[in-house]
């Protein structure tokens, strides 16, 4: 803009300068021509007076440098000339100005010289005696005049041009500076040129809408990232060159990668064979759902290609951690298999005994013994089914029981009493210590948990061992510790003993009895009560089950 204004101003000044100079020169030239004519006339008049009084001698005194003066006789013979030699000059009678002077008393003529660079003005005057006095002067024409003045003219031109340039640059800067200094953040506060005001208003309006749009875009972006960040599932968006466009922290966690700067390939996050294949396939345009293993966790990875104009421009990948689900499924499968097995064993015995009796192979006196076997197996079945029902009820959380104040000491005492007989069989000593701690909880379930813990302690105890129940209050929570002197539990088994039907010593399960659901009931029951169960154990020496019940 500055440049343009400068150029315009500069050009205008130059054009004005040139025109002015031209016009002035023309006018002046014309004016000086007239002036010269007048001077010649005056000079001739003076000279005429002198010649009429003193004759030709008056002319002799004229200096050679003065205007050219010619004195001509009536017949045209040159009598005197102060520049040229009068003797050698031709007859002037035919000259235009002389003829005119002879006729009218005065005459003028203009004759261009041969070189055309100058012209000569003549003025002739007829004297009283009939002779003619002629005065002439030379005027240079315009180009010649200019040629003569070229140096000062050029100097002036350069000076004026420089001046024009300087002024033009100053002026243009003066015009543009306020525009440059415009505060575009607040367009409407500027008050410089009225012409710019509409533009500023428009800028203002656009700025506002732009701000609004940016805020909107930012809000959407934030919304999106908040949503994806809070997703448990890993979320990845990649382009056709496998570069990651967007990801959430769950994706990094599941893939076992670290946050990265800049746009990098998704393969820098994970380069396992399965993942590479998946990326390759999805970018070929195939929808993929596979199970992959990342860092020992099984994940379900779903990948969808993104199409644009029949070309795959990227892919969206969602990663789901299905480890727990797989584990759950595995456990359910095992549970079903175990339940069927456990149910089948007593049923087979019952069916077998009944068949033998039915076939009449049993002596009448033995029938009672067989009936006893059948009864025992049926009892075992009932216990098992009861346990399964209890577990499913606990599982579903459907126990509808009111909470009441339970004296833990009393509860434990009752349970130990119920187990006394069984303890006596193995000659196990039962001990109970502690104060009467009262807890507000569901009595039936608490008793169930405690019973199973003590029952467990008896079952796996050795001959003449002991079972100790210790009740105490720790940090405001009631705590029951059931300690036995049994076979103990190894480190690997500790994780699994609470699983349904899990038996540490599978080969002796029949001899020990029980359904394999006892500790599972303990776990689910304590979960129902909001209590916590911990196991400490030394293999071969005994185990400690610590049940902590919140007040």
């Amino acid at each position, binding site marked *: 803009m500055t440049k343009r204004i400068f150029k315009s101003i500069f050009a205008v000044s130059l054009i004005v300068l040139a025109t002015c100079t031209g016009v002035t020169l023309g006018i002046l030239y014309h004016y000086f021509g007239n002036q010269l004519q007048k001077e010649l006339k005056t000079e001739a008049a003076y000279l005429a007076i002198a010649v009429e009084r003193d004759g030709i001698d008056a002319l002799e005194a004229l200096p050679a440098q003065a205007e050219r003066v010619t004195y001509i006789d009536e017949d045209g013979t040159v009598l005197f000339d102060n520049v040229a030699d009068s003797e050698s000059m031709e007859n002037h009678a035919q000259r235009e100005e002389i003829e005119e002077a002879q006729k009218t008393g005065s005459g003028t003529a203009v004759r261009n010289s041969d070189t055309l660079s100058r012209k000569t003005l003549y003025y002739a005057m007829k004297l009283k005696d009939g002779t003619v006095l002629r005065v002439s002067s030379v005027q240079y024409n315009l180009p010649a005049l200019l040629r003569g003045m070229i140096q000062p003219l050029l100097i002036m031109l350069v000076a004026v041009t420089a001046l024009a340039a300087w002024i033009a640059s100053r002026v243009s800067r003066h015009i543009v500076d306020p525009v440059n200094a415009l505060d575009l953040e607040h367009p409407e506060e500027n008050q410089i040129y009225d012409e710019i005001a509409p533009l500023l208003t428009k800028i203002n309006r656009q700025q506002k809408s732009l701000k609004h749009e940016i805020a909107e875009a930012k809000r959407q972006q934030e919304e999106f990232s908040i949503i994806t960040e809070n997703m448990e599932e890993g979320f990845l968006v990649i382009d056709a060159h496998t570069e990651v466009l967007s990801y959430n922290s769950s994706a990094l966690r599941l893939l076992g990668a670290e946050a990265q700067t800049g746009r990098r390939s998704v393969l820098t996050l994970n*380069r*396992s064979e399965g993942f590479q294949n998946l990326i390759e396939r999805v970018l070929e345009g195939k929808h993929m759902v596979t199970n992959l293993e990342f860092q020992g966790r099984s994940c379900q990875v779903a990948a969808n290609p993104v199409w644009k104009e029949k070309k795959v421009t990227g892919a969206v990948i969602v990663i789901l951690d299905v480890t727990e689900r797989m584990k759950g499924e595995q456990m359910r499968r095992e549970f079903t298999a175990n339940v069927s097995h456990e149910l089948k064993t007593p049923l087979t015995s019952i069916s077998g005994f009944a068949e033998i009796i039915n076939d009449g192979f049993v002596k009448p006196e033995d029938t009672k013994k067989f009936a006893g076997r059948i009864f025992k197996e049926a009892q075992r079945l009932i216990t098992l089914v009861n346990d399964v029902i209890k577990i499913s009820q606990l599982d579903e959380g459907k126990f509808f029981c009111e909470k009441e104040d339970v004296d833990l000491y009393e509860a434990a005492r009752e349970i130990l009493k119920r187990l006394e007989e069984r303890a006596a069989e193995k000659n196990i000593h039962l001990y109970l210590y502690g104060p009467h701690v009262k807890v507000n909880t569901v009595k039936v379930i608490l008793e169930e948990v405690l019973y199973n813990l003590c029952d467990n302690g008896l079952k796996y105890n050795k001959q003449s061992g002991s079972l100790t129940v210790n009740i105490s209050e720790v940090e405001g929570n009631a705590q029951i510790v059931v300690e036995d002197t049994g076979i103990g539990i190894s480190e690997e088994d500790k994780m699994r003993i609470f699983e349904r039907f899990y038996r540490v010593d599978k080969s002796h399960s029949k001899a020990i009895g029980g359904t394999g659901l006892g500790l599972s009931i303990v776990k689910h029951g304590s979960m129902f009560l909001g209590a916590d169960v911990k196991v400490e154990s030394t293999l071969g020496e005994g185990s400690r089950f610590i049940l902590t019940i919140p007040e």
Partner: protein
Amino acid sequence: MRKRFDQQLEELNVELIKMGSLCERAIRRAVELLQNPEDTRVSDVDRIEEEVNHKEREIETLCMKLLLQQQPVAKDLREISSALKMISDMERIGDQAQDIADMARFMQVKEIAHKIHIGEMAEATIKMVTESINSFVKKDLKAAAAVVKYDDVVDDLFLKIKTELPAMMEKDSKNAEYYIDLIMIAKYFERIGDHAENIAQWVEYSITGSHQELRQE
């Protein structure tokens, strides 16, 4: 122009990661085979090795194209030249993994393998390869330095195996040829460790512009 170049560099990066993971896979399969010779996936190692060779050519072409068309300088040039060196190391790892697999195929006395430190060495080597590729992927100087240092562990294990074997050979002379195979396998592992170390050094070079080795001396 620069954007296109960056894209090509990233492409090179991705190809290198792919080749690196192929190497990891090759050596892991070879080790699996060593631990369980009845495994039928021997041909798998051959296939991976072939893929590695193919990738090497591909990356080489890509590097040449980048060098000629973009005439990179400074860090870009270092990245490309170290890529060129890295792929030859990776290719060697693939080759040697295949060699191990070839030998493992005929090793019928796998109990011997359990008696010496070869399993440990295999694990250490796999770890080195994985870590060296990791250091490249993450452009992690510390990880690269760790790999270089870890090479000593592999070297020590090789020496251990070397001292263990003669005594065992004496006792079990009828299986002598397997012991020779074992020492060769150990040597291959040791070489793979060296190549992994080289890769880590090239990672260092491409980031810093100088070699650790030279700086230490």
